């Protein structure tokens, strides 16, 4: 079982898929309304139409309360009771479980399990072949740069290391789509930058489709092939911006002019989103 992508990315070029688009996640007219305890109805999501292309790194950005986490939870199969249609690689929602891996803001490692056992958790729950899974877990732990830590326990690791392990865990059952909900939100700024670069490397090595929620404009631009901007109440997609920065991206990318232009554009889009909310 190789982790190396069958569609290797060419260095120094923007993301161009090697085959015709086949969307990994397809959302059609997805809306979610829920009632608060006081009986108020909240439009968490309103008429979301979104395709996440296969192999794409998609960043989703928006103010708090714009429903981006709800969107991720719907894709992950954690949130029911929505209107509209969701399919993953052409399969309807029931097949979702084996096809997504989730990275939460908190690593959510089980403190009584060692690193290897933690990474193996999805394989255990999904009843995958144990020997093959162990082999794959070792490869993934090496990929996230923590070879030799297999038998350590979470309390022996730093926050950044724990988050790397939670990424390895999200990949162990070889899902097509990696869902990340503010994966670096709990990390300090320096660790965060290192992790951004690391995750891009992992993504380039595994050819996963990534759907990442973030609060950070620069993170969204730095990592994404495309940035989706959402606005709150009701949660809507207000813009989709293709990021044509060459790959592989590194720390120098952050100081380029094109990068600044993208972040500026997104900042303006986010302002429009929030001023509309105030007008309403």
């Amino acid at each position, binding site marked *: 079982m190789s982790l190396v992508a069958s569609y290797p990315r060419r260095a120094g070029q923007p993301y161009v898929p090697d085959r015709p688009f086949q969307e990994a996640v397809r959302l059609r007219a997805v809306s979610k309304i829920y009632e608060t305890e006081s009986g108020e109805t909240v439009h968490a999501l309103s008429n979301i139409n979104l395709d996440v292309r296969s192999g794409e790194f998609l960043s989703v950005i928006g103010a708090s309360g714009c429903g981006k986490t709800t969107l991720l939870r719907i894709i992950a199969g954690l949130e029911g009771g929505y209107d509209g249609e969701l399919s993953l690689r052409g399969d309807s929602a029931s097949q979702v*479980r084996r096809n997504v891996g989730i990275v939460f803001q908190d690593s*959510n490692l*089980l403190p*009584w399990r060692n690193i290897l056992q933690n990474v193996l*958790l999805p394989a255990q729950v999904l009843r995958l072949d144990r020997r093959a899974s162990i082999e794959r877990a070792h490869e993934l732990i090496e990929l996230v740069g923590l070879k030799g830590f297999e038998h350590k326990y*979470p*309390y022996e690791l730093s926050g950044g290391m724990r988050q790397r392990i939670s990424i390895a865990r999200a990949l162990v059952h070889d899902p097509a789509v990696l869902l990340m909900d503010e994966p670096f939100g709990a990390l300090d700024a320096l660790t965060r930058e290192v992790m951004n670069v690391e995750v891009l490397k992992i993504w380039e090595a595994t050819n996963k489709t990534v759907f990442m929620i973030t609060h950070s404009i620069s993170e969204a631009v730095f990592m994404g092939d495309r940035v989706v901007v959402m606005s709150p109440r009701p949660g809507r997609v207000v813009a989709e911006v293709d990021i044509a920065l060459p790959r592989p991206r590194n720390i120098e990318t952050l100081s380029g002019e094109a990068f600044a232009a993208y972040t500026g554009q997104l900042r303006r889009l986010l302002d429009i989103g929030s001023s509309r909310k105030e007008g309403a």
Partner: protein
Amino acid sequence: MQIEQAQSATIAAPTRSRKNRPIRPFVSDTAISVLGFLALVSIWEGAVSAFQVPDFVLPAPSAIVTSLFQGLASGVFVRNFLVTGFQTVAGFLVAALVGTALGALVAQFAIVERVVYPWLVALQTLPKIAIAPLIIIWAGYGIGSKVIIVALVAIFPVLVNTIMGLKSCDRGKLDLMRSLGAGRWETFRVVQLPNALPFIFAGLNVAIVMAILGSIVGEFVGSKSGLGNLILEANFQFDVARIFAVLVLLGLFGVLLSQIMGFVQRRLLFWNK
């Protein structure tokens, strides 16, 4: 009170605190406490002989030690200790198992919580010791009634802490399991139960103290043997030295039990730092 128990259990990490201690005093803490104890005993011994305190008021430490050895040599203490020890441990184990199982049912099934939990809370406020005479009537003067009393007294801290521990699980960990399609039983076994263990152990630590208490009080209320029974007998005979000797045994028993608990806890909850 249960919350504080749980938190103190979470914070307590004996191996750590020892490692982090900044200075190493010349005389160890153990030496100081042993010396202090010896000093206290000497003063006691000296005061009793100097003021000629009668034995039935306060026996000298030497008289207590003599009584202890006599009791041990005659086999009376050993026989009665085995009775009380068995009652206490058996009742504690019943409380631990039933308390955890019942707590799990309450935490897992909303209907059990709605129907059973209010009754459990009401029962908890009742002083269990007050039921002891009833239990003796129903279950007799033997060991069985004491096991029931011990279990009744010891079950509540386990039950309450189990419920709290199971409910305290992070939503993120539960979401993780749910996103993988894990069933209720698997989520319970793999995530919720281990997550609740520090809480359950905090409850067990309270329960072990309650178990000894329940055992002795049960014997006071009505019994044919046991260390509590021995205390009553010695009391009638004004053999205060023997009462103290039995108290020493009970103290040692308590220390032994909490050492065993501590050992199990350190092995099982090594990750809880």
